[in-house]
């Protein structure tokens, strides 16, 4: 079944790589414009649950990687659909029309990474209040620097003397 799925995906969507890194895991690397059609295709294949959306900040490559975790009730296969988007002015089409619960995951990623999801009606912050700095989960955000600036410098014990 897995091999057949791979063949069909590769046939329909160009610029797409399909890998099986471990047992029961499938990784689909694709381009932004293919994302919605592939998710729709997988949903029709029975992968109806969007388990999560993860975001990784690859700062050296100046890219964000979004990982859409899909799974099915009939098969142990767990699919990760990966898309890379530019770090500057990061934005991508929302998928709430296909998976409704993407709403809250997109909201979280917007808050913590600053990725904008076009078409998502509610991207208000979930956790942070009056946040003024850059989104906190980006790699160039230094928590220690931020604490020093915000709350003043508290010397370490050995530095006191």
């Amino acid at each position, binding site marked *: 079944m897995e091999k057949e799925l791979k063949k069909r995906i590769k046939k329909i969507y160009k610029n797409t790589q399909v890998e099986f890194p471990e047992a*029961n*895991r499938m990784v689909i690397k694709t381009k932004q414009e293919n994302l919605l059609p592939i998710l729709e295709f997988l949903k029709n294949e029975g992968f109806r*649950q*969007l388990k999560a959306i993860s975001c*990784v900040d690859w700062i050296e490559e100046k890219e964000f990687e979004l990982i859409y975790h899909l799974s099915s009730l009939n098969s*142990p296969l767990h699919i990760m659909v990966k898309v890379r988007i530019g770090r500057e002015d990061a934005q991508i089409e929302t998928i709430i029309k296909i998976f409704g619960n993407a709403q*809250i995951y997109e909201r979280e990623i917007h808050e913590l990474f600053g990725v904008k999801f076009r078409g998502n009606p509610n991207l208000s912050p*979930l*956790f942070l209040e009056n946040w003024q700095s850059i989104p906190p989960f980006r790699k160039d*955000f230094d928590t220690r620097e931020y604490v020093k600036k915000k709350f003043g410098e508290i010397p370490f014990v050995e530095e006191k003397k």
Partner: protein
Amino acid sequence: MRELELFFGPQHPGMVGNFSITLKVEGDRILEAIPNPGYLHRGFEKLMELRNWIQNFPFVCRINVVEPDSMEAVYAMAVERLANIEVPERAKYIRTIVLELARLASHLFGAWAYANMLGFDTPAQWAMADRDHILDLFEELTGARVYHIYILPGGVRRDLPDGFEEKVMYFLHALAQKLPDYNETFFENRIFYERAKNIGKIKKEEAIEWAATGQVLRATGVKYDIRKVEPYLVYDKVDFDIPTREDGDAYSRILVIRDEMVESAKIIMQCIEKMPKGKVYERLPNPFKWKIPKGETYVRVESSRGELGLYMVSNGGNTPYRVHFRTPSFNHGLFILPRLLKGASIADVGNIMISLYVVAPEIDR
């Protein structure tokens, strides 16, 4: 009637955990519910990127207060997968026992929260007292009551103490003897039935569509459990069943929880019976100098509230590059809860929320 805005939580008797909901009400009916998390946001995922692989263990368990062991297990399993570390057979059995004891403790805690909220004080205190016995067992095994930091990559921290198996068996038998009392006062109590039946109802299609997992999904009749779908540890070597119910309401969810406790007890007994002798820890080099090979993995386990996943990326350094926890409460609490609250009455807010088993620290992380 006039529309009012009502703040429910974080300090409300019907609310368990630091979590609040803003309700738009008209009379007693809820028009809209807006969950408002963030009271417990500690940014663990970011902090873990700054610390060694081994230094993260005190963090992961604190992500979930009521069931920390599944967090430890999922983190340890992810590190093992990336680094190709084999776990000794005995350690696998001990991990299973610990995870199932933690599931029991967590379900008892959930039963306490539910019973306490609805005013069933007696079974609530029983459940809390029984949970305390499990914490005593954990204290003997690991040295700590709540946050154990017991499951490490390569195995578990130490072997079972002398006579531990008998104590666990004794506890399980004592709990089984109490089950009829629990049934009479709580699970099959007519008052509780009236209070929880047809409350917070989810249809099967909706549950699938909304990516519900755990007892929320199983209460709608779907037999889906990660322990069976993708058996980890020794779940493929023990015999157990996945309890389901058909109605998808709060009452079905709590009955699924009760039946799961029975199955957990069965698993623990089988593990104690089948457990081989041998070492419990694969000796690894100095953990402060670990470098985990480049790669990424997604590990999932069945926690007491649903599928718990961990997406971990390593770039070959001595700290994780990115960890992302897929916690069941995040989806249940922020996405499903407001949909169930629409049209419910104010008195049922806590009822629905606890029946979904939303744990606040898991949402915020």
